[in-house]
């Protein structure tokens, strides 16, 4: 057992830290609370930041160099995520492209697709959104009905996607569509579609935070060239499940860093407001403890990556932990701050350290997206604990 980063990884981390110090002019928190900021201006900022990271060679960390990646490892990727959190850097704009589609193309795409799609994805020239959920297919994703009929050398897409994160901001969508109505899992294919294709309509949805980060996408006889199929026909489900496991693992450390900073700011706010009673201190201490345990989970997965272990279904445990803790943390923060914690950032009396009200609302998302907590518990019960399936 050894939880110290290797010399080589320490060197990488220190170089990265120096680069961040020189290149990140403004912490994300400050950008967010700028009264001049709009959703568009924030998206632009994230696009510019992503380009900067890309030019410096910090994106596509664990992807092969020949496709525009850095040729590094999952360890370096986790270190990068943690340092970005520590520096309070904005999230990159194309996180769905890089987080989900990139791995799908690297593992299942054709050589042509990798060369065509990966460079503009990394450079934030083409922004991707994720077309998985449908009005009738959320947690039960395999019941999706959006269809892709083969017609010559084209697919004809019909149906509707919803909760499409980044829909209103994207240029492209990766779609899970049904190519065989008789085969529940084997009848799903993974297809790439440009959002300005005739027959495709994007509509914004307003979220509980007031923002419109997600939307819905309608397909009415939208024609997509056959070459936009990733993998083979009927492989879509398998591809989607592999990439989702990637998304779930190895993120605890960065979350512990991000939450840790907010907990420290909350503690400072308590001192500032003279909120030093025992009840408050116990609440704060419990947050500190849970965050530290999450950090330990993160260090453990980082060490496992470094030891050459691939994250399996137990990465669901990490996702349940950080997303459920996020909710408890933000609720406790509002309790501790009292009514002032509920003020919107536009309100003159609102605290300027963290947008506590927005974080409180936003924390409701994490236990729903990318496989709800209930789905993660199903995965743990079936694939880690090997419990029998419930009879019908």
């Amino acid at each position: 057992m050894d939880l110290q980063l290797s010399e080589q990884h320490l060197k990488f981390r220190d170089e990265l830290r120096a680069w961040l110090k020189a290149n990140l002019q403004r912490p994300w928190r400050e950008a967010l609370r700028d009264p001049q900021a709009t959703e568009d201006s924030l998206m632009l900022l994230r696009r510019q930041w992503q380009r900067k990271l890309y030019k410096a060679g910090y994106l596509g960390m664990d992807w092969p160099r020949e496709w525009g990646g850095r040729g590094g490892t999952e360890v370096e990727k986790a270190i990068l995520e943690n340092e970005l959190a520590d520096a309070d850097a904005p999230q990159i704009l194309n996180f769905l492209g890089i987080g989900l589609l990139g791995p799908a193309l690297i593992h299942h795409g054709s050589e042509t697709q990798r060369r065509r799609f990966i460079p503009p994805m990394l450079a934030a020239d083409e922004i991707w959104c994720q077309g998985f959920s449908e009005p009738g297919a959320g947690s039960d994703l395999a019941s999706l009905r959006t269809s892709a009929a083969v017609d010559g050398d084209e697919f004809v897409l019909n149906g509707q996607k919803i909760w499409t994160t980044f829909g209103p901001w994207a240029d492209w969508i990766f779609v899970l569509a049904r190519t065989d109505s008789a085969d529940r899992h084997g009848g799903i294919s993974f297809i790439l579609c440009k959002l300005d294709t005739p027959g495709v309509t994007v509509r914004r949805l307003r979220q509980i935070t007031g923002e419109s980060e997600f939307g819905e996408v309608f397909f009415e006889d939208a024609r997509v060239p056959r070459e936009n199929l990733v993998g083979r026909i009927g492989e879509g489900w398998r591809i989607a499940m592999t990439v989702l496991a990637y998304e779930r693992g190895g993120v605890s450390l960065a979350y512990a860093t991000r939450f840790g900073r907010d907990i420290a700011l909350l503690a400072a706010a308590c001192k500032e407001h003279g909120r030093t009673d025992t009840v408050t201190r116990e609440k704060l201490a419990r947050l500190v403890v849970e965050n530290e345990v999450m950090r330990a989970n993160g260090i453990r997965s980082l060490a496992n990556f470094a030891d050459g272990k691939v994250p399996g279904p137990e990465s669901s445990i990490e996702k349940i932990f950080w997303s459920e803790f996020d909710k408890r943390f933000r609720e406790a923060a509002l309790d501790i701050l009292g009514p002032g914690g509920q003020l919107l950032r536009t309100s003159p009396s609102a605290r300027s350290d963290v947008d506590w009200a927005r974080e409180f609302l936003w924390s409701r998302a994490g236990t729903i997206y990318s496989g709800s907590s209930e789905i993660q518990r199903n995965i743990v019960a079936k694939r880690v604990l090997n419990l029998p399936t419930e009879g019908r």
Partner: protein
Amino acid sequence: MKFDLSEDQALLRESTRDFLTNEWPIEKARKVMEHEPRGYELAEWQRLAEMGYLGLLLPATVGGQGLGAIELAIVLEEAGRACMPGPYLDVVLAAAALAAAGGQEGLLKDISAGKTVVTLAREDAPFRGTKATPTRVEGGRVRGAKYFVPFAAQADALVMATPETLYLVAKPFAVVAMETIDPAQRFGEVRFDHAATAVGSAGLLGRVDRLAAVGASAMLLGVMSRAVEMTLEYVQTRQAFKRPIGSFQALQHRLADMLLKTESTRSAVYRAAWCFDTNDGAAALACAAAKAYAGDAARLVCGESIQMHGGIGFTWELDLHFYFKRAKTLEQFYGSTEVQLEQALAAAGF
């Protein structure tokens, strides 16, 4: 970087599990817990000494193995799984305090050889918050009382703490037994009117307390791991409504949460042990967090295990209650959750 145990550490785990499976099967632990007034067996204590467990952390010069907190956590996790009764952790901690104080080589040799049992006397009152009078030492004599002294009736000497100083006090002691819900652990109230030898500053206990936090949370990890195993086995065999109850989602989701708590405790315990051994800057916070989390987690996991066993879970006959009781007692001692929460805040600088 590697989370898995090294070859030597894995070997230690394997040999400890074999040792405990052979010498401390649960039937025997039950017998000792229920019928042995000492709370452990002298012959078994000798075996622990022969196997090198008593001197695990002590230097070779006093017959020890010179190992660290990771190795201690491995042994205690296994001891927790086996529900091994006796003063093992208490003696390890008292020896750590004496080793830190220095000048106690003879005593430490006897401790690691299993000839002498020494534990730490810390609690100044039976209930927290009562206006306790700390024990005083004047003219080389200690007067006053200590409560919840681990295995006081069996101890040859006690390391007694005043707010400033650690003293060594030798038997005989007049002990009033303090029986708790947990028969794996014995406590006593000790009234002192004894000669006391100062051995060092009470400040030495800071590091001992961090070791106690790691050790107790490792034992809690073993306790809850075993409870999860027993429950997984039960829900797959017990039938209701014509199917194994483990096929019901109402139980599956809770079992998933039990695994989450157990595995998160594992991450926290071994990271804390590593931080302790390497004197990492995060050690104080990591140790406090591990104990605070493990205490809550083990109580919840063992409680859920009893619930899922139904009526049989509430019987004395099933072994599960011993684990549930261990969980609650370990949560309260070796730095209670309250104490660890304060430590965590202090370590975080809040």
